[in-house]
């Protein structure tokens, strides 16, 4: 699609969507939100770039291949589970290294194994949605699938 309105709009909207996506991921600890919804919001960025500038540009924007991003995300989720198992003895139990109860008050940064898990989910969603999007976009143009053996 070649539309100057879409391209200009996309440039302006990308930072907004990314910010909202990351905020949703962060607030998912105690409020509605989390990795899955955040990941879908971030995938909107990919979809917009893909529609405005083409698949090649969207791939460049992601830097890594989409399935690689999903793989890294899955690894993050597994690592957070193992972290809980090492620290507390229970797989997937929560660990808060920067957050402690000092004199009856909870202080510090509420980031721990759960944020790692949620970030993993975030990456899996971004990766898989982008992979599906690119595959559908390229399905009609076989010669663009150069990365296949």
């Amino acid at each position, binding site marked *: 699609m070649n539309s100057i309105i879409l391209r200009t709009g996309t440039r302006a909207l990308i930072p907004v969507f990314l910010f909202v996506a990351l905020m949703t991921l962060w607030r998912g600890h105690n409020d509605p939100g989390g990795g899955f919804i955040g990941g879908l919001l971030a995938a909107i960025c990919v979809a917009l770039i893909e529609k405005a500038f083409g698949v090649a540009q969207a791939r460049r924007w992601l830097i890594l291949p989409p399935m690689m991003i999903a793989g890294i995300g*899955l690894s993050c989720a597994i690592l957070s589970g193992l972290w809980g198992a090492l620290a507390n003895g*229970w797989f997937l139990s929560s660990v808060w290294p920067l957050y402690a109860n000092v004199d009856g008050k909870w202080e510090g940064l509420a980031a721990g194994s759960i944020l790692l898990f949620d970030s993993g989910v975030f990456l899996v969603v971004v990766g898989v949605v982008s992979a599906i999007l690119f595959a559908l976009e390229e399905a009609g143009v076989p010669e663009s699938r150069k990365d296949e053996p």
Partner: protein
Amino acid sequence: MILVWPFLIPLISAALMVLLRSRENVQRWGSVAAAVALLIASLALLVRVLSEGPVAVQVGGWPAPFGITLVADLLSAAMVFITGIVAVAVAIYGLEEIDRRESWHGHHALVQALLAGVCGAFLTGDIFNLYVWFEIMLIASFGLLVVNGTRKSADGAVKYVGLNLIATFAFLSGVGLLYGVTGTLNMADLSQRLEGRQEEVAVLVSAMLLMFAFGAKAAMFPVFNWLPASYHTPSVTTSALFSALLTKVGVYALIRTFTLIYDLDVPLVRGTLLWGSVATMVVGVLGAAAQNHFRRILGFHIISQIGYMVLGLALATPAALLGAIFYLFHHIIVKANLFLIAGAARKLTGSEDLPKIGGLYAATPLLAVLFLIPALSLAGIPPLSGFWAKFLIVSASLDMQSWFIAFVALAVGLLTLYSMSKIWLEVFWKPHPDGDQAIEGTLPVAMLVPIVGLGIMTVTIGLAAGLFVDAAMVAAEQILSPHAYIDAVLGARQ
């Protein structure tokens, strides 16, 4: 952690294989290594359960019934162990069969994801978590059906997913209803809360919805059409894996829910299951008799054999349940082996259509013998494992004086023999229609090793049947009086 490793190992392997997508050799040998690791982990779990009884762990440290519990009694542990055996056999076979293209499209990663789903389904103690593992299995198996990218397999995959999605909706609705009635999803907790409430309408409706869902997953009559439509289209490695595990997860879920949560003494539940299983046996074996394609015949026989297992559950005596469990173990080994042999025959003769091939007995007598072991076992010829499996089910139905059911079970066994001898005559005995020179090459070692290994297991189960019957008896006792299971879940700390 002993309960976590059986699905964590495949999950880690799947993540690594996605990351190392372009390294084909890493993927091939990595899937063998991952399967061996899974086998070791499942063996450790089996030994632990055999010595200590049911074990449970609360994931994330949240106590039951609030968190998700993983629990293994002897049935679960044994199912996970057999999953490990099949995983190793299929991974070795895949070294030869899976080509570069399928590997790049994610065959190996999807197999690991499927194994994670299967092991998770066997080990979870939470009915909604069971749904999640079913979804993982469904997504992974859909991917495996389409990785080879042919029109035929896409057609099979659409039918497969369409029918399975309906079953999944029924599953979710049933679980929602159950949660609305009891306020819990933990299966051990459900078992206690539903005591004396089995006849309530909402409970009965949820029971029927779950029976439909698991019945469809297990390919029971009348919702079996997805299986013959899809099982012959993907690579042999994939269809052997499917035939061994997917329907059996459905049977496992039926056994688990209809002993632990629902009461089989309710006439509606029991009658539906009983006549559904009889119809499944008959329809499956008649469907097989009409086929002329190697893997399609085997696919219909899965349906017929599922009927025997569910019949064992529906008869609801300890002896019948023992038979059903023994049947599950025997069937997984035999059926995976038959599919692998179908692939070996295709490799040598070039086709799976019975009229187009032949002459394998003259070319490779070894493969002919290796085929006879699982084929005769499937038909129930002594002293192979299938004889004991059928014997246990038939004698349990005779004990209950269900003459008609015993007669049907025996007749279906006879028709199974007919199908197996048809394959024998067409594939092995008659000369190849294009002459003897049409059979080229020898069997690769990677194909032969799993076929021989599974054949030895079939013979062993047959000859040492007493040992396996004793184990199945312990498993059946744990299921029929689930106090140890419930105590392990609701009292578990570590």
